[in-house]
Each structure stands twice: as C-alpha cells, then as structure tokens.
C-alpha cells in the first residue's frame, strides 16, 4: 500500500513549492474535521509550507475501519483510538472546538467558543451525519436501545455488549441502507463477523440481514464466504425479498419493513446518512444531503474557496472509505497549494482499496483507480481489481493480514 500510494502521489505531484520566500505571511488553511480525510489533509498541506489549523472537537479520534472486529470481540477499542500529537509535532495548530458557522464570503469560520478563524482556503472533512428522520421511530434515543454503531465509539461498544449479553439461540437483526452511505462493504463485513461470533460463541443463534438494495460491494465474494462458513446461520434478505426497512419498533426490538416486521434479541440499525452537520449548516450540501465538488480540486460547487473531501463529498464512482478520504486529502492539499499560487491544477488519479473480513483469517479486497470524467470521478476500467472468487485459505489469510497492515499504514499517515 505504501508503494502504491507513493506512486500515486507521484502522478499528482505539483512542482515543488518555493517554501515562502515572500514578505507576507504564508497563506492560512483551516481544516474542519480530524478524521482520515481532515487529519491527512492537514499534514499534506503542512508539507506544502502552509499555515494549517485543524478544527476537531474531540481530543481523540475513534477509527471506523476494523471497528466491526471490536463488535465481534476480536479487537479492543484502544486499538481504534488516535490522537493529534503527531499533527502538532508537524506544526499544525489543533483546536479542539466545534465549528459552528462558516462565512464563505468573508472567509471566516466561527468556533463553539465564539472565536473566529480567517482562512485563505477552507477544507471540510466532516464525515457523515446519521439521518434520524429517515426511518420511522429511529431517532437518537432509539439508538441507545437499537445501536447503529456506524460512527465508531460508544455505539460500537454498546453493540458488542449486547451481543455478549444475548443468550445462545437468540436472533440478531441488521438493517442495511440503500446507497450512498459510509463504507459500502462495511455492513457485510459486520454481518460476517457477527456470524463468526455467533458460530463460535452462540452456535444456536441466527443472524438476519435486511437490505434496502439488491446488490452490494464484493457481493459474490461475501456470499461465497457466507455459504462456506455460516450456512443456516446467516440469512440475507434483499430489497426484492422485502428487505427494505421503513422504521423500527423500539419497545418490540424490531425492524419494520414494507411487508412486515422482524424482531431480534439484538437489533443493529444502520440508518441512511448525509454529509456531516457543518456541511449542511454552511450550505455545502445539495438536496441529496451530500456535497458536490470539482473532481480535480475537490473545491465545492456551491461555496467558492471551500473544499470538501471524504465521506461528505459526492465523489462519483469513488466509495466513501477511509482510503478514499486519505487519497482525496492528498489531491486536495496539492490543489490548494497550486491554487494559492495561481498555478493550474493537473488532473489527478486517485486510488482506493477496501479490505473486508469474512472471518478473522479470511480477508477479501477490491481496489479501484479513479479520474475526473464528465465532472465527477469515474472508475478507470481495468485499472483496479478484486479478490478471486476461488482461492485457497492461505490467500484469504494473507489478505486478512494485509488488511491489518493497511490499517497501520493509513493511521500512521493520517495521525503521524
């Protein structure tokens, strides 16, 4: 992965920037959001010699990749947590405040304590907000009983505890949303690892996966894995089988679908999503709830001078993943450095790889390469790849190990 990304950075590399041989101060860039996108972008901007402020309310970031392994008891929450000392050591000013307002005309960000930050360019990497208005009865209070666990943290631990507390023979119900949402293969990795947990710890239990769509990322690989590892344990109900959730019954611990209702001892509801709150507040999101951007610079199509990266942006064929956010962060940082000098921005190539675990020692992956085409990021045919449908256990075990390496590499890059 390290090699792949370095090669990629080479493709988009800007001419080396003169490290400020100017009289005036270096241009200031504010980055809102300290996840994979924001933290990576702040570091990349800093490497261009820019004055960078990272705005993130939390002192610690909890990573979503591998949080499905926490739910299945394979990993501790500690391994998911990252701080900002690395960013500070790079000379980035880290402000632990929430951004509460953006004035794109005056180029100012307002923070929770009322103070203001002026910027020459602003990067929004706010991640997702869960749509608590999308499923009838599923609001923030309901998530305390029927966890979503789609933003890693207390919700991840809650779902894990509920699985641990469940008696053998119980039914776990998962509701999966329609596209687009954070981490397209994530729900199916989660289903796999919950099935693995049940198979090893509570073998008389069942898992029912209700999906609002008929096809999904790495579907044939997942389904082959499920048939081999979890027959009779994991039942998948697609849209055409009545799998779309329309609401929940919190008291009855049930997911309500268009054609009925499915109760479970543990119910995991992954609701539809949109760009994080600050993107909505700033007016960077369109009616879809996500942020349209220029695919070359990631500059907002709605707010000049504001760039949107990561899960919040509409990235065409590129999925909402930590890897995508990191790749977009680098392209966006290079583009900002060039734009601030008035230089043209070359057309980028972006890479994404998504690893998923079907079992702790059974990994699969899909990779794609993307370029701007027709105003969005399009998949370059033949440039990516997917794990083979037929492969010996050693191949699956190797991919599971690569997944861990990937996590170490990307968290080191984003959080230093």
């Amino acid at each position, binding site marked *: 992965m390290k090699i792949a990304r370095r090669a990629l950075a080479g493709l988009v590399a800007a001419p080396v920037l003169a490290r400020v041989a100017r009289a005036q101060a270096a241009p200031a860039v504010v980055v809102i959001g300290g996840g994979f996108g924001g933290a990576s972008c702040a570091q990349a901007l800093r490497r261009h010699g820019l004055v960078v402020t990272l705005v993130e309310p939390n002192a610690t970031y909890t990573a979503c990749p591998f949080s499905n392994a926490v739910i299945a008891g394979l990993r501790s929450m500690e391994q998911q947590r990252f701080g900002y000392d690395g960013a500070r050591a790079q000379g980035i000013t880290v402000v632990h405040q929430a951004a509460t307002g953006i004035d794109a005309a005056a180029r100012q960000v307002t923070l929770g304590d009322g103070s203001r930050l002026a910027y020459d360019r602003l990067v929004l990497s706010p991640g997702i907000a869960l749509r608590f208005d999308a499923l009838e009865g599923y609001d923030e209070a309901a998530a305390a009983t029927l966890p979503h666990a789609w933003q890693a943290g207390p919700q991840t631990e809650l779902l894990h505890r509920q699985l641990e507390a469940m008696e053998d023979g119980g039914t776990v119900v998962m509701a999966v949303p329609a596209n687009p949402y954070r981490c397209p293969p994530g729900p199916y990795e989660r289903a796999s690892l919950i099935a693995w947990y049940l198979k090893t710890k509570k073998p008389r239990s069942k898992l029912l996966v209700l999906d609002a769509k*008929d096809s999904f990322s790495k579907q044939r690989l997942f389904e082959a894995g499920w048939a081999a590892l979890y027959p009779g344990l994991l039942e998948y109900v697609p*849209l*055409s*089988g*009545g799998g779309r959730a329309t609401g929940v019954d919190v008291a009855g611990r049930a997911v309500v679908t*268009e*054609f*009925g209702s499915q109760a479970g001892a543990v119910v995991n509801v992954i609701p539809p999503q949109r760009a994080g709150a600050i993107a909505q507040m700033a007016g960077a999101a369109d009616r879809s709830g996500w942020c349209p951007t220029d695919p070359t610079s990631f500059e907002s199509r709605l707010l000049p001078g504001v760039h949107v990266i990561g899960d919040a942006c509409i990235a065409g064929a590129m999925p909402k993943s930590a890897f995508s956010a990191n790749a977009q962060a680098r392209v966006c940082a290079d583009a900002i450095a060039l734009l601030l000098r008035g230089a043209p921005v070359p057309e980028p190539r972006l890479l994404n790889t998504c690893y998923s675990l079907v079992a702790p020692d059974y990994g699969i992956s899909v990779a794609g390469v993307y370029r701007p085409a027709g105003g969005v990021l399009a998949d370059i045919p033949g440039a990516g790849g997917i794990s083979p449908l037929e492969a010996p256990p050693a191949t699956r075990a190797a991919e599971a190990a690569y997944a861990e390496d990937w996590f170490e590499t990307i968290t080191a890059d984003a959080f230093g």
Partner: protein
Amino acid sequence: MARVLLNIPRTARKGEVIAIRTLIQHVMETGYRPGADGEVLPRDIIRRFTASFEGEEVFAADLSPAIAANPFLSFTMVASTTGTLVLRWQGDKGFDQTETREIMVTG
C-alpha cells in the same frame, strides 16, 4: 410462479383509507439490452397491473420497459365493505399471475 410480497390489512374500519403494498419478483427485461452473446434480449416485462375489489377495478397501472426489476407498487383505497381484493399482473411471454386477499370491514 413469481414470488409476490403483499402488505394488506386483514381488517379495516368502514370508510378507512387503507394502504396496499405489492412487490413481484420479475426481471423486467427492457428489450434493448444485448445479452452475453451480443444478441438483443427479447423484451420480457409486466405490462399491466390491476387491483379489483368485489369485481370493481380500484387501481390499475401500465408498466413500461423503464421500470426496474421487481416492481413495487403501492396504492390506497377506501374500505367500504367486507370483500375480496384481486391483484393481477399480466405481461410478456404470457405472464399472468393473480393473488387474492380477504379484507374484513367492521362498523
């Protein structure tokens, strides 16, 4: 027989507006798409859906090639009297499927 999913209330109060939801598993092949051998696949769609209550048509729809596979149709009707709801899907290649449900109306 294609698989059909229905959500129809078994009972209703007289005069109540009730929602009927239907989903039928069907490929809805457009007739414009080439198959693996390069030959255009013949059209195979559901062309018409009708819902009749006690012999009277209460809802109907003409379906076109642009409609996605596994068409989901939902409509509302007024529960006037106890009776039988007959749902019928007809289409290409002689496709013809009927489902019936009793609705008990009280009050």
